[in-house]
């Protein structure tokens, strides 16, 4: 019985940290692969509407974004508070949409262009007038697959 004495507790072997860099590197590579750099700087106020019937947009490379909303305070002085369209990094008019879609198409793999989707990210207080104008232009540009970007209900 005397053999079992509390001797173990005394000396704690240090945890080997030799493999720590490897673990960190693995995490690093994971995040490097997953990362998508934010390309556009948002210049309009955007509070998306909420909905329940949502579809996920899978292929990010096949999606082009159109933002519509009030200019953020920085630009509001110059442009006023009327809703504006933002394509890439610049403010635009509905007439520019066709050209924008053409440019986006040219960037894509030719075989994949039929799968191109346009995501409309529109502030919920915007009136339908400007949205309709954009939709008409999209129809003219033959970019028929669209997605009204919205948040799941109950989230903020």
């Amino acid at each position, binding site marked *: 019985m005397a053999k079992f004495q509390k001797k173990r507790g005394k000396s704690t072997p240090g945890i080997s940290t030799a493999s720590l860099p490897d673990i960190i590197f693995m995490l690093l590579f994971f995040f490097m692969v997953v*990362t998508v750099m934010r390309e556009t700087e948002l210049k309009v106020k955007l509070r998306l509407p909420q909905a329940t019937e*949502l579809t996920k947009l899978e292929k990010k490379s096949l999606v082009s974004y159109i933002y519509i909303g009030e200019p953020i305070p920085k630009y509001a002085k110059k442009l006023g508070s009327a809703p504006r369209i933002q394509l890439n990094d610049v403010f635009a008019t509905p007439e520019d949409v066709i050209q924008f879609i053409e440019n986006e198409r040219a960037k894509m793999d030719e075989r994949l262009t039929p799968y191109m989707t346009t995501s409309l990210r529109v502030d919920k207080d915007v009136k339908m007038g400007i949205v309709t104008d954009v939709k*008409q232009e999209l129809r003219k540009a033959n970019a028929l697959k669209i997605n009204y970007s919205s948040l799941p209900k109950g989230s903020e």
Partner: protein
Amino acid sequence: MPRGRQSHDINAGSMADIAFLLLIFFLVTTTMDIDKGIYTRLPEWDEEFEDVKLNKRNVLDVLINSRDQLLVKGELFDIKNLKKEAKKHIDNNKRDPNYSDSPKDAVVSLKNDRGTSYDIYIQVQNELKAAYREIWDREGMRRYGKVYGDLKREQKKAIRKDYPRKFSEAEPEDLGGGS
């Protein structure tokens, strides 16, 4: 020459720190959010506008004015009841003379004002989509014992053939209603 032989070990102790820094950088810049939304297809653009004559009973007229009021079949309507109404319309099968002949003939026509807010427009789209999804789910359960989302491609197609989503959006105009 003898100098070159002497190989020093590079101190790898700071490797972890460097990796950590990079890791934190990527952690911060990562955007993992997936874009979600209501997916639709716009009708193709054609210059000449053809007026398709439809039997009046087959069309569910949904109108939104610039005050965000909903008008269904000419009557003021609460958006909460829209899904039920749409389902009743689609699933009528000649029972009620005011609603559609069959699911295949049923059309939902949506018209909005230029002053309608985007929010209410999305809510209406959402409700109409939900109505169809619920009918598809029910059909899926009845025929295959699964909800629509879990069905195979052909099964989905079969259901969609019997309950096609016919959605017509008119050109918006100034309907008035005070903007």
